[in-house]
């Protein structure tokens, strides 16, 4: 059995382990809430994470299409980018937890040199996903700052400007 088949076979166990590792980045009682509360509206964070990991895993395993991967990671990073309880490294680190989740679940099989080598290659893919996550994180943070800046400008000048109550020199306040 090659690595890919193995991963396919152990998929659900690996993903469950991965999910647990991700939510354990939150304080203990929060992480338990994220795991246990199955209501997607009462627990949007946990629901978002659990919904995204499976297709993300499939994508890494099969096509490795960057755009699709970005689409799967985006909702998770989007949340973690505004949770100041997490540092930037904590916010993006969850991608790399997949390595641990796989190694935990394939302990025995990894004694096989060939599979072990295949895994090293596979882990390069995970690294790549990590970089995509970094991109998205930065994009989200930039967006937060854009929102901040626009919020400030819009509320102060938007309508006044339209009403002609401020002069044209304020034009650069159009919004970023």
């Amino acid at each position, binding site marked *: 059995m090659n690595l890919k088949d193995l991963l396919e076979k152990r998929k659900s166990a690996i993903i469950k382990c991965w999910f647990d590792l991700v939510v354990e980045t939150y304080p*203990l009682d929060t*992480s338990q809430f994220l795991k246990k509360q199955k209501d*997607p509206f*009462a627990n949007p964070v946990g*629901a978002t994470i659990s919904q995204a990991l499976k297709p993300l895993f499939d994508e890494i395993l099969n096509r490795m299409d960057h755009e699709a991967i970005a689409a799967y990671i985006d909702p998770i990073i989007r949340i973690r980018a505004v949770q100041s309880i997490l540092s930037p490294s904590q916010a993006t680190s969850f991608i790399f937890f997949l390595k641990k989740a796989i190694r935990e679940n394939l302990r025995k099989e990894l004694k096989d040199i060939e599979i072990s080598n295949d895994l090293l290659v596979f882990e390069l893919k995970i690294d790549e996903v990590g970089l995509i996550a970094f991109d998205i994180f930065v994009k989200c943070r930039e967006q937060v700052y854009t929102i901040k800046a626009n919020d400030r400008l819009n509320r102060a000048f938007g309508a006044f400007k339209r009403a002609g109550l401020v002069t044209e020199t304020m034009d650069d306040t159009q919004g970023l």
Partner: protein
Amino acid sequence: MNVNYMFSLLAVVVLILLAYVGVEGAGLQVLFGVIIPYIAVFIFIAGFVYRVMDWVRSPVPFRIPSTCGQQKSLPWIKENKIDNPSTAGGVIVRMIFEILFFRSLFRNTSCRLNEGAKITYVWEKWLWLAALAFHYSFLTVLIRHLRFFLEPVPVCLQLLEKVDSFFQLGLPGLFLSGVVLLAAVIFLFLRRIYIPQVRYISLASDFFPLFLIISIAITGIFMRYFTKVDIVGIKEFAMGLVTLHPTIPDGLGGLFYVHLFLVSVLFVYFPFSKLMHMGGVFLSPTRNLPNNNRAERHINPWNPSVKLHTYQEYEDDFREKMIEAGLPVEKES
């Protein structure tokens, strides 16, 4: 190890040993059987009354019910008379639901998203169910104990016992309430240990009464079903207490005094602690007031007089600009 519950457990164990050794070792039956119970009842009543009076002493400046249903507005819009009462009658019904059926805990629902994005609602019922079971079985047990203090035993009490021992298991007949009480209180304890959010917010003072009640229930069950304590003696003892002619019959045993002492501790602990929610729930201003502020004025006894910025001052500040903008003014200059 959680220091909070370990401490509480230790405290209860110490209390048990204290009573047991005090009676069996030092022969302090009078202290544990008469003096402490009298003091405990006195502290309970005085403390309870004091706490409630203390709450009542503070006024309710604003009428701020939490509205949980449609308000009374236009005649053709159906109002929710219970969850958002506009009359005293509605408030009474709301309070009855709240106090007898724990309406707010009952509200705890959550929904699940199934395959195909179809929503189903799941009723988060365990806390509500356990709380209800706990309080009602406790009440039943308490009322059942009145048979020791009343002679002759009223018919309604005998009836209650009949219902309670509905399942004819063994002899003496098994009281359902005692079993349910123990089960519910153990559930409430496990909940505090296993649900991390609840563990995080739990204090030693939350575990203490749980251990206390667990111990009271266990000692009670033990006496009734296993050591088969001398009921006649206990009745004599209890009648002595209520008639203010305390006697100490022989052969009641250490376990009985432990049971009695723990109950005394619970009585003393009650008015100083969160257990006062029993009184407070009646007085909670977000529940016991109607949502009719716009129809009937609520009076604040300390309504403060405050400094205002009057229209005249405002016009003085902006008169010229107002005139220029064509706004009417009170004074032209």
